[in-house]
């Protein structure tokens, strides 16, 4: 029979697929007439009239009936035309016909499965023109709902397809340099897979790939963009600025440098914005997981990823807040799991840098997590102190920052946590005695001299609080050291400066901050609780409970500021260095800070 003319098709749909089959078989023999016409119809994309659309739908349905005759090498142009189609370019009837064809293709022949899944995954993200035209959300849900249900249909017919899908989704993950919207959309789809029917099969891959991507973006953000320059006030001051009224001119000059302003400036760059959006997406997903009761399983995968990627990354800046947020949703399970894991790595781990990193995470976490019950903090602290205590019983020698760095990290962590939590712990009699039994003074007074090796700012603050609360009796630190780091603390931190790593310092990503803020302990809250004379237990509790640490009465701020201002010319005063990663005082800057925060695009700051 001669090839029918496409424009004059008058037979029914069921008959049409016989013609298509014949055409496919004929094409293998060399007679490509009808076959080429078919390919031409499928290629049409621009300005389709209603008749064109109907023709396209009919052709797709006809090909669906003839999939058993499609051969991967003989019918390349047909397959290419089909797989080139983007669902975003068509209406719902074409979409439905196309997706049915894909399902039929995938289930008819093993060779097609890969191609069909790849095509579906590439439809996770629309073509770039879509973003420019600002089409509404209805298109997005039309396409993505269908894509995901098709993936499930294929998985029902080809049980091993999720294995292939896993690999494809992982490989097609956009690069960090891609624009924000496509990456965010792709991740949205990945998370949808995770919470969908195939979640058990591809979910853990999705979460691990996401964490890897967050760390990749994190690493792209340079530390020098974060560390404060020669402000007269330190980054930490911003916390107090939030609540204090600028009382004098000195303060007013620097008023603009509130934390919000610094966040805005910081986030003008590319990568911080992407990281911010992705983390918010992750937070929302975690919230959904919590509401459906799946958070613990998801958290276990995140924890695994944390151990492998985040913990070992060089001073991850913000990605770890994913763990913080997850813990805040479920303190009893996830919160405890996280703390346990970190203590375990510190006590039983093998690699010294990772142990130091783990205890830095632990210290920052225990200090900052508002949702953690104080008794739990005490238990974790006790485990760290126990380890330190056993360690120094075995080592009697003198100060040696390099060799004993894990021990010094443990001591510094203990002091750091107590700077934040001492008042709270002392308020509970049981914990007070537990604290006294820990015999921290024995460890800190040991010949290994941790007080001389750990960061002076932390040591000073700890000693001050310890003296004030009459917790333990320790000698004052030697007075000559006003600098940020003693010569010993630079050594113990090593080239990576792990001694100055406070991973859960206030987050500088504005959208994420909204999620973290209600669960976060700011230094100002701690400060306020011991600034008052004769602070009662209720006041301590109040200071911690208040939303942003802002309930401090006005007169406090003046006192606080005075202490700060006294050595503003030098590196910032001691208590400020407490909670925020201290300025990098390395010789690179010639002892002075660069003049301004600059986004990573303009390196001339150095």
């Amino acid at each position: 029979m001669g090839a029918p003319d496409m424009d004059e098709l008058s037979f029914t749909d069921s008959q049409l697929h016989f013609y298509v089959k014949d055409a496919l078989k004929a094409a293998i023999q060399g007679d490509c007439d009808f076959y080429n016409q078919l390919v031409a119809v499928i290629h049409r994309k621009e300005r389709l009239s209603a008749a064109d659309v109907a023709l396209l739908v009919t052709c797709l349905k006809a090909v669906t009936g003839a999939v058993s005759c499609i051969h991967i090498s003989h019918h390349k142009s047909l397959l290419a035309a089909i797989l080139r189609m983007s669902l975003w370019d068509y209406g719902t009837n074409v979409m439905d016909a196309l997706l049915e064809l894909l399902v039929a293709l995938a289930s008819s022949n093993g060779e097609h499965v890969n191609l069909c899944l790849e095509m579906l995954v590439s439809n996770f993200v629309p073509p770039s023109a879509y973003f420019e035209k600002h089409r509404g959300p209805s298109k997005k849900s039309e396409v993505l709902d269908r894509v995901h249900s098709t993936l499930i249909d294929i998985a029902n017919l080809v049980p091993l397809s999720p294995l292939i899908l896993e690999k494809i989704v992982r490989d097609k993950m956009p690069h960090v340099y891609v624009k924000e919207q496509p990456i965010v959309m792709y991740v949205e789809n990945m998370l949808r897979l995770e919470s969908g029917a195939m979640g058990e099969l591809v979910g853990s891959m999705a979460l691990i790939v996401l964490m890897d991507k967050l760390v990749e973006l994190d690493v792209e953000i340079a530390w020098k963009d974060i560390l404060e320059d020669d402000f007269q006030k330190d980054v930490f001051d911003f916390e107090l600025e939030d609540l204090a009224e600028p009382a004098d001119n000195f303060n007013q000059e620097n008023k603009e440098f509130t934390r919000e302003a610094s966040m805005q400036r910081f986030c003008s760059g590319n990568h911080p914005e992407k990281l911010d959006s992705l983390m918010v997406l992750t937070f929302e997903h975690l919230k959904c997981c919590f509401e459906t009761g799946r958070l613990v399983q998801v958290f276990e995968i995140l924890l695994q990823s944390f151990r492998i990627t985040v913990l070992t990354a060089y001073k991850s800046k913000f990605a770890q807040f994913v763990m913080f947020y997850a813990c805040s949703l479920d303190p009893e399970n996830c919160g405890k799991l996280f703390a346990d894991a970190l203590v375990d790595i510190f006590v039983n781990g093998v690699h010294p840098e990772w142990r130091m990193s783990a205890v830095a995470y632990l210290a920052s976490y225990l200090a900052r997590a508002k949702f953690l019950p104080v008794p739990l903090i005490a238990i974790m602290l006790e485990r760290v102190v126990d380890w330190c205590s056993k360690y120094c019983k075995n080592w009697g020698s003198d100060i040696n920052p390099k060799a004993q760095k894990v021990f010094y990290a443990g001591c510094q962590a203990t002091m750091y946590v107590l700077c934040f939590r001492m008042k709270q712990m002392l308020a509970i009699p049981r914990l007070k005695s537990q604290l006294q039994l820990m015999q921290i003074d024995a460890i800190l007074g040991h010949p290994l001299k941790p007080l001389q090796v750990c960061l002076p700012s932390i040591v000073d603050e700890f000693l001050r609080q310890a003296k004030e609360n009459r917790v333990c009796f320790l000698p004052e630190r030697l007075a000559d050291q006003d600098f940020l780091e003693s010569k010993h603390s630079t050594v113990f931190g090593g080239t990576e400066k792990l001694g100055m790593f406070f991973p859960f310092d206030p987050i500088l990503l504005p959208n994420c901050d909204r999620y973290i803020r209600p669960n976060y302990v700011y230094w100002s809250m701690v400060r306020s609780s011991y600034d008052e004379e004769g602070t009662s237990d209720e006041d301590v509790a109040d200071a911690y409970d208040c939303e942003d640490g802002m309930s401090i009465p006005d007169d406090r701020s003046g006192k606080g500021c005075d202490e700060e201002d006294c050595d503003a010319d030098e590196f910032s005063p001691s208590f400020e260095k407490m909670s925020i990663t201290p300025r990098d005082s390395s010789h690179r800057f010639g002892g002075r800070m660069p003049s301004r925060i600059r986004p990573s695009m303009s390196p001339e700051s150095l």
Partner: protein
Amino acid sequence: MAGLEECEANLIVYLHPSKENCARDAILSELSTLLFTYNETVGGVVLAYDPSILSNLAKIVPGTFPCFGVQLKAKLLLFNPKPDMVLEGEVVKLTPNSIHAVVLGFSSAVIADDDIRDEFKYKIKGGEEVYVSRTHRKHKIKVGTIVRFSMKSFDEEILHISGSLLAPHIGGVRWLDKNLEEWSRADSTATKRNTGDRKLENYTLTTYETSVKSDEQIEKSKKKRRQHT
């Protein structure tokens, strides 16, 4: 079901030194990478394994990093279907042009319309798709039922089976199992007439076979006697 075999394999599993403490777990996870892939060495898709470690000593093998090789014997369950073998799978989708089934829960099987014998007709009954036999109205193939088919080809990479329902004694298992006796009896008299038909002899049917055959012989002999008398 045809195509399943058990074999015993002597294997050496090479482990990274860091796995020294948890060697057994590491071995099991290495073996699990074999699952659901076609392995040419053992000649089939590995479905299950049962290792027994021969000794606690392992040989250290030098290389980029040294690893240690643990010798073990493992019983493996293999799936190695050959053409014309009769397989069974659960029907997951029916279309006018094809029947899709899943074999052993992991392998996707498709029977194209060219390979479905004319006896079966596609219908939609009460909103449900079904293939009904024209000769025996109760012989149906529906979604969720088991279909018995013969294998045409097996794609070793994606583990995809292409099947056929052309041969006579295959179709919906529920009906076949109930009516096998009757059918094979009817067929055996047919075989006598069509001596050239060798197809039946190649079928490996289920355990009904032996009991049916013995009954058959009795019936045949009775019939013969009746005919003669």
